[in-house]
């Protein structure tokens, strides 16, 4: 039996009278590519925020690698190996591409830096961090643009950098919030290929609108509607699920 990397138990989030996420219990296996789909307002992003720690749940538990992380601060979740990307590109625009990646790499090595070094040693003189930075730059194919400001990159390249930031924190599970939002079909294909190659060793959890895409890449799919889990299963199971067809696919799509 494969190990479980992420598990939610009765996860619930209420905003006033609205229950955005209602008793969602998921389990993601180590190495799995899990996608979460659902119509607008189904609670996808809220679920995502509860798992990453951007929101705290009204009820329920989040377990990561067997440990309860429900009350753990977001930055500490990252330190434990839970990475995330943002739906709206969120990179450090005024800093160079290399510095963006280096900062992410520095974060996972910060325990090895003593306070004196943190204040006074040149940030580029840490070998491990620099090595990891260059590796990631190679992986995301931005090596030759590494000295440019991140905000000067084209949109597609910024998305790559976004993934690079996640990758550089050396995560076990990567949460991807619509990584191909606003991309052309070629860019989408390129980004999915990138995710495939770059994040091959990580467990992935993808929030996505594009159903065709999800059917193609996922190991398992969870469908949410109105904050509740409607079904979970392999792409085939989901495609053949009557409830899913009725509620979400509307029976039109094949």
């Amino acid at each position, binding site marked *: 039996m494969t190990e479980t990397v992420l598990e939610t138990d009765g996860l619930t989030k209420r905003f006033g009278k609205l229950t955005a996420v209602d008793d969602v219990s998921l389990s993601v296996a180590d190495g799995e590519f899990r996608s979460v789909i659902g119509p607008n307002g189904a609670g996808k992003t809220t679920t995502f925020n509860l798992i990453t720690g951007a929101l705290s749940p009204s009820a329920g538990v989040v377990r990561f690698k067997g440990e309860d992380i429900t009350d753990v601060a977001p930055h500490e979740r990252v330190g434990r190996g839970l990475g995330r990307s*943002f739906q709206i590109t969120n990179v450090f625009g*005024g800093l160079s591409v290399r510095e963006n990646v280096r900062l992410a790499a520095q974060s996972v090595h910060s325990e090895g830096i003593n306070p004196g070094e943190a*204040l006074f040693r040149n940030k580029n003189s840490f070998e491990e961090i620099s090595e990891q930075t260059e590796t990631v730059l190679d992986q995301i194919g931005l090596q030759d643009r590494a000295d440019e400001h991140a905000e000067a990159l084209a949109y597609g390249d910024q998305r790559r950098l976004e993934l690079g930031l996640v990758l550089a924190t050396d995560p076990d599970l990567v949460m991807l919030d619509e990584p191909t939002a606003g991309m052309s079909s070629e860019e989408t294909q390129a980004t999915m290929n990138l995710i495939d190659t770059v994040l091959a060793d990580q467990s992935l959890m993808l929030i996505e609108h594009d159903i065709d895409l999800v059917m193609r890449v996922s190991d398992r799919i969870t469908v949410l509607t109105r904050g509740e889990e409607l079904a979970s299963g392999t792409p085939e199971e989901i495609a053949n699920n009557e409830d899913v067809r009725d509620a979400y696919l509307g029976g039109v799509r094949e």
Partner: protein
Amino acid sequence: MVAADFIEQLLNGLTLGMVYVLLAAGLSVIFGVMDVINFSHGELFALGAYLSLSIIAPFGAGIGFWVAIVVAPVVVGLIGAAIERTTVRPLYGRDPLYHILLTFGLVLVINDGIRLIWGTQQRQLAVPAYLSQPVSILGVQVSVYNYFMIAFAALLAVVTWYLLNRTKYGMIIRAGSQDREMVRNVGIDIDQYYTLVFGVGAALAAVAGIVLGGYQNVNTGMGNSVIIPAFVVVVLGGLGSFRGAVFGGLLVGVVQTLMRAYSGSVLATFGDTTLSVPNLEGLTVYLLMIAVLLVKPQGLFGTRGEESEGEGELLVGGYGGILADSTRVRLGGIAVVALAVAPVAILLMGDQYYLVVLNEILIWAIFALSLDIVMGYAGLVPLGHTMFYGVGAYTAALVMLHYSQSVFVVLLGAILLCAILAWIVGSLSIRVSGVYFAMITLAFAELLYSAVFKFDFTGGSDGLLGFEAFLGLGGVGAALSNIEFGLLGYEVGQQFVFYYLALLIAVLSLLFARRMMNAPFGSVLQSIRESEERAEFIGYDVNRYKRRAFVISGGMAGLAGGLLAVSPSTVIISPDQTLNWIHSGEVIVIALFGGMGTLYGPMIGSGVFFGAEEFLSSYTDQWRLIIGTLFILFVLFVPRGIVSIPSLVAQRLETANNADGAVDMDETEVRSDD
């Protein structure tokens, strides 16, 4: 007649409170709708009072007062609308920080304009005789004017409430203060309403100025004395909330008046113990403000979510630019060498006064540098940074008076105490962000400012004096005042010695800060400025980094304050010289003026600011007017500060060269350098 006395004080409090209501209503709605922190509101208030002086003069008090109370607010309202159109409007969408610089410039301009037109003498605003009569109702004796003020202000408040709540314009304005973007999205051009809001806010302030002017007197400091309490009212009530402004205004007016009237009076006696009202006048409202901000940052009646929309862009001067790093380092080296030989020139000229100016510049350069660490790098804007400057100065003076005169011990003491203070203030305030952080640090600074008046050991309003610094450690060295020796026939005194000490410390501080920003710690600060959320989600404890930056910044500001106390030109350390909020404003202005986010920019800003002040004040009494105008022009046209001028010039030249051909539209972005 304890009850009658109490009611009398309560009435006095309500009277003052109504003035705050009128002031805060405009301030709050202006902030709520436009995100403008309007420091010049107090000066518009004073302008109303002064204008009415001139209006009353030809008519006499009987009719003139009524003419003035109608005409003066209209005139001030029009001036306010003009200010919005010409200066505030181009800044929408930028960080509220730039409004601080702008409205600070407006404070200087309007205040100096008032001095120029009406002079600096305190004036009496004539009110009709029947209003100034005392009247006794149920044994409570106050002036008719009190009742008039309360009734008149209440009437205006009701009218304002009606306009805001029962008219279409009001509804749009209220909607705008909740969520401006949404109002735009439903197809309403909210920008059109800004001029109206600003003008009406200014007119209400003018009314407040007239009624308070008739109650007390009219003087050039009246704007300055009400602006901070008015901010307290706005924050207490909730930014953008009219109901909050009314409630907060009355609360602050009553609390202030009652604490003044009853401080020290005995409440009850139990055997040997007496329970008396603590002498907390002045402190209470700030304690209240801090408590409210910690428990409910959006204020008592605030409905606005924290950071309801993305803040405008912070224009740091730090990257791009036309000068290479090596050129910049070389220029820095040249500047230091020039500063090192400057005293020789001063010796030859024989006027040591220039050294006094240079010493002040160096002290403020360190102070402005300390601010840049949090403001330009961690994106935190403290409106109370002078608390560290002041506490540093007081600590240094106290250490010299009671413990050790050694400069090293004194400065170390100032740094340590301020770092501890920064840790405490930072721990409490960093959890709130943006403008709330600015306000809570302002409250702490005002709390300390009020506190030094209360204690004997800080010398009350007189301040501390009679301290002397000793350049050395453990008895080895010499007292600064005794240092005087001849060099090639010239007399070298303590000013010279202090100058080199200050220059050394300033250079070391800059090198320290530079080093830090190129180290892992500083790099994280920059990432926080770029995107706090992203920094959190690559694994950094953002609040901890901010707090540490605040501690380092506070310690460095304390060092600047310590140097002020050590300086041979400083005889007294007084509250107004060190802890007055105006210095918090000044240091922000200097940092922006020089170019924040560069470290050296704010230091250059200090030099230019004090240099210009010295230069202008030797030619004209209206130097504040000129400096204020300069700030306004800078924030409009050179937002990245002095350090961005070379690239602005280069860009202009390029545009001029390209004038015939196609102009590259991407090049409109302003880049900076020194």
